[in-house]
């Protein structure tokens, strides 16, 4: 009996490993991935990075310009996440099980969230590029749509989890719908909602680099410009500045989270 158990366990595990290996092999064939090149490219890239990918004096002369674009990118990320959060909160109220008005609005809210979340930010930016061109608004709207989709889902789940009891208590006293929201839902879920908003801003700054490369705006454009003109020293400085900005922002939002949660 016991022997059988271990045998079966081992058999299951080997089957799983074989399955994963088979899927991996299939994926390698379809994606035309070169395994040997994959392994050798890592040390190659490392050696190249040490030799070429560091900022020099010429790169530092571009620092004001880089900082300028970095600030613009951060502002776009903050503005898109914050404005999306306001709209997402309204949709979350309509979509949440505890606070929804009726099933129709709830399904509309979920549909919108699914639609906007599942179209990637790269896709949005390429679509918006048609009419907004290379302006800051292309990036803003691309990030806004994705933030809206993600935050609606996150906010809906948070409101579902956090505010069930307090909403019920206020309803029992005969409080109106609006005052139930402002006095039960908002206070009990505010810390969680802000935590999600901060997370969204962090994500947006990373995505903003990608959007910038695709649409020719902000810090991503600057990286692309230096990269394509083979000025790797300046490009490395852009990467370093982005990393510093993201780490600083992470530290700040972790501090805020520690205080409010």
């Amino acid at each position, binding site marked *: 009996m016991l022997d059988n158990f271990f045998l079966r366990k081992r058999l299951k595990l080997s089957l799983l490993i074989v399955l*994963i290996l088979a*899927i*991996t092999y299939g*994926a*390698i064939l*379809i*994606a*035309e*991935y*070169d395994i040997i090149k*994959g392994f050798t*490219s890592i040390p*190659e*890239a490392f050696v*190249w*990075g040490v030799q070429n990918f560091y900022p020099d004096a010429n790169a530092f002369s571009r620092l004001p310009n880089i900082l300028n674009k970095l600030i613009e990118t951060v*502002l*776009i990320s*903050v*503005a898109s996440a*914050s*404005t999306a959060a306001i709209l997402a909160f309204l949709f979350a109220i309509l979509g949440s099980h505890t606070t929804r008005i009726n099933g129709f609005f709830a399904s509309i809210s979920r549909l919108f969230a*699914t*639609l906007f979340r*599942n*179209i*990637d*930010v*790269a*896709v949005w930016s*390429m*679509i918006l590029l*048609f*009419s*907004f*061109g*290379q*302006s*800051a*608004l292309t990036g803003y709207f691309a990030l806004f749509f994705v933030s809206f989709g993600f935050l609606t889902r996150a906010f809906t789940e948070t409101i579902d989890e956090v505010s069930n009891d307090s909403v019920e208590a206020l309803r029992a006293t005969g409080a109106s719908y609006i005052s139930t929201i402002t006095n039960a839902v908002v206070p009990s879920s505010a*810390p969680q909602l*802000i935590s999600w*908003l901060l997370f969204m801003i962090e994500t947006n700054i*990373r995505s903003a*680099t*990608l959007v910038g*490369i*695709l649409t020719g*705006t902000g810090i*991503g454009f600057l*990286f692309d410009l230096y990269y394509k003109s083979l000025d*790797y020293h300046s490009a490395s400085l852009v*990467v370093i500045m*982005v*990393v510093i900005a*993201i*780490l600083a922002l*992470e530290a700040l939002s972790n501090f805020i989270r520690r*205080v*409010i949660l």
Partner: protein
Amino acid sequence: MKDLSTKDIIKPLKTEKKIKVKPFSKAGLVIRLTLIALAGLTIYGFITFDYKNITFFEALAGSLTNFRVMFTEAHFNHFTFSEALYQVLITLCLALLTTIIGAIISLFLGLFAAQNLSSPLLSNSIKNVIAIIRAVPTVLWVLIFAVSAGLGSVAAVIGMTFHSVGYLVKAYSEAFEELDHGVIEALQAGGANWWQIVWQAVIPSTLTYLVSWTFLRFEINFAAAIAMGAAAGAGGIGFDLFMASNFYLDLREAGVITFFILAVAILLEIIAVRLKKYLKTAQ
């Protein structure tokens, strides 16, 4: 004697100071400050953005027309339905390879990064390096690798793997750290070595978390693979979208491709929800 109406009795109460229901709290203050700061930055942003002479409402109306054309008149121009399906498959395979390679590397690094399974020095140094790796956006990793490996699937997979590892090591190590200390102690007392503890206790009891984090990363990697196809020439459906929108300026084809991407993304999300439910009931 003057009649006392209820009004007279209640009136003096009204002029009294409102009773403060909410006591002062640091958390409330920080919440308020955060919101004010975000609102300020948003307004400042809107004032200083580089609008490049775009008329907002004209562009917005233009976008709405474009959306309508894209999604209601979507059809193929440069390739067929089956070709598009194959391109989606390539993108999925890129995401799959990245996720599998990333998950294997992250499993080991995650074990060494978990505070209860490794030394504080090793754990902290791995976590710090990982934080820096995670701070570099995926597209920059891919482009950096593309210089030595050339644009294509190798640079895309290796570059995306870096960011995946940064993400998964954090998730895995936090899952390992939540493991009850008593379990490890009991096995240590029984004379089990480090690898036995890992394979018999740590991984089986955190498997649910590991699988759901890994699948979540697979979903993210699918989106990243689309983006890398567009921004770093990695091939797949992302590259087709890039060609349709930036090169052929073909709205209808971009619409068809967007539908494909949306369908796969929603499918992945449904699988993820099912998987989570299954894992919850299996435990």
